[in-house]
């Protein structure tokens, strides 16, 4: 049997609806709620049912033919994964080394990943930009940006 995009999508949503429905049953109800016409579980139950029915409908009506298969060739997944890891690192860096350094690291990392190699460009496009944004936020808009936890641990905060 040929598996096409619609089959994959339908299966994913069928599983999702089942899991959603299972957890909908775990939602704690207030005492006496089970006699009410509408409570916290009502809509989730309906949604889980609708999701399941639609997913099955998608599985049944799935279009087969040219272009219906999932093609992964030609996509640069490795680069995207690296970029997303960089974003996660950016979140960690925000906590540990503060906004300014984290931004500089993120931008240089991003430029580097996308193929910019000249050190001059890397620094010129990141440091002034990060300092500028930081200055606008802290000095102009008076937004408090927490210093990195690393510094407060070393210097004491």
């Amino acid at each position, binding site marked *: 049997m040929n598996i096409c995009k619609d089959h994959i999508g339908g299966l994913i949503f069928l599983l999702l609806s089942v899991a959603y429905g299972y957890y909908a049953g775990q*939602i704690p*109800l207030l005492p006496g709620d089970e006699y009410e*016409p509408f409570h916290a579980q009502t809509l989730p139950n309906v949604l889980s049912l609708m999701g399941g029915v639609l997913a099955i*409908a998608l599985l049944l009506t799935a279009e087969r033919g040219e272009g219906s298969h999932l093609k992964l060739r030609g996509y640069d997944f490795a680069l995207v994964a690296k970029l*997303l890891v960089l974003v996660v690192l950016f979140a960690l860096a925000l906590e540990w080394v503060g906004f300014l350094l984290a*931004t500089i690291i993120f931008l240089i990392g991003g430029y580097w990943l*996308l193929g910019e190699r000249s050190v001059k460009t890397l620094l010129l496009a990141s440091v002034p930009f990060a300092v500028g*944004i930081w200055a606008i936020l802290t000095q102009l808009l008076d937004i408090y940006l927490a210093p990195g936890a690393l510094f407060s641990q070393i210097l004491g905060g």
Partner: protein
Amino acid sequence: MLDGIFTGLSTAVMPFNLMMVVVGCFAGTFIGMLPGLGPISAVALMIPITYGLDPSSGIILMAGVYYGAVFGGSTSSILINAPGCASTVVTSFDGYPMAQQKQAGKALALAAYSSFTGGTIGAIILLFAAPALASVSLSFQSSDYFALMILGLTAVAAFSGKGQVIKALIMTVFGLMIATVGTDTTSGTPRFTFGNIDLIDGISFLLLAMATFALTEVVMTVLKGQHKEEDEQMDMASLGSMKLSRDEVKHVAPTVGRSSVFGFLVGVLPGAGATIASFLAYGLERNLASAKEKLKFGKGALRGLAAPESANNAASTGSFVPLLTLGIPGSGTTAIMLGALIAYGIQPGPRLFIDNPDVFWSVIISMYFGNLVLLILNLPLIPYISRLLVIPRPILIPLILFFSITGVYLVSFNTFDIQMMVIITVIAILLKLLEFPMAPMLLGFILGGIMENNLARALVISDGSLEFLWQRPLTLGIVVTAIVVLCIPPLLELLARKRGKNTADERGPEVAVSEGEG
């Protein structure tokens, strides 16, 4: 109504708000010109900025960005045959051939004039239609609201293109599911939080919109390897004259008028946005043309350029009608604006007209200003704005990523949100590869909370019976409309199949739309 117009005028001409229109149009044009980023991404990127502004200034900024992005999209369609968004795909059919014939200047000017006329006619109709509709919708009860939201959600699915209806419905349900995460508003019990404190408040609209429309779109360009492509150099010397002769104006004037009114009407329908309007207007114009002129379509016909341009701008305006009067967005972009309004604590809908007349009217008035700004500022500046596109992609992409991430972070100051964005982006990429549309999900997410509240109220009033769906004629009418809207696409498909294969080779608008959206 004259009162209202003056209220709106006085709010809209405040120097700060005027500046917002100008800034919005510029930013929108710039973002819209970047291939891959359309109006939805542009408006999503603006949300964090609007959080610091007044509601009316914020929504004015967003409206400006919306217009600017549509205009920017047509510019890149004409100049480099790379439509920035789906609604300007049709523009490139006749716009790019004109540019190849060294008439790029004329094409740009015609696009701008048609957009302006389309937007203006749209704004004028909006001026009369919106208050009238708002006064009718004042008599709505919770059952009517519930039915309306069902209509809004099904309409978005129904207009999503051939073979996409079930997928769009699934995404709507998915959006509704995401909306149930967090504390239940009626009983106060946590739902689907899995003991995670960061999920107690639910998933924020800003986070979801930024992750699905800004982050994902940018990452998709990287995924497809578009960041390596060098932009085709726009040869400014070959722009040619930007003037239209009197004969040419006479030639396209009826087209522009027709397409504007037509585009506005399509835009008003919930779910049908600028993209569908532009395709339909182009098709209509081609059918109306004489046999001799029909041959010119696709090779640089003036009418073929004017029709989609006026229609998509008029439709952008038209999609504000359901947003402002019923609180139901007519397109993905207005869905984001709806979310932003709700974040301000403003409930769009019939009460908006009465509770916040300044917001209501200033949006309508500033829409007109937005069109004016596009015409007198952006058009002459196009050669300079397009120079900004010379910034190499490897520099531009991390910057856009940075803006979309910090936009979310600077509102919550919680790094968990950034991790959450990455997770949502990964899911969104997968769904995009499987060709699921994203806009219905966002719409379901935004309307989910309000829909549940109205359903709860209607059910409690009618003591748990579903009678409320057919007891009031108004509710019944809306429900029937929703069912009809949902049944039309499959029926049409069946009819087409019965009619045989002789029509199969003609590219219907739906096919083209689903290609354009993909």
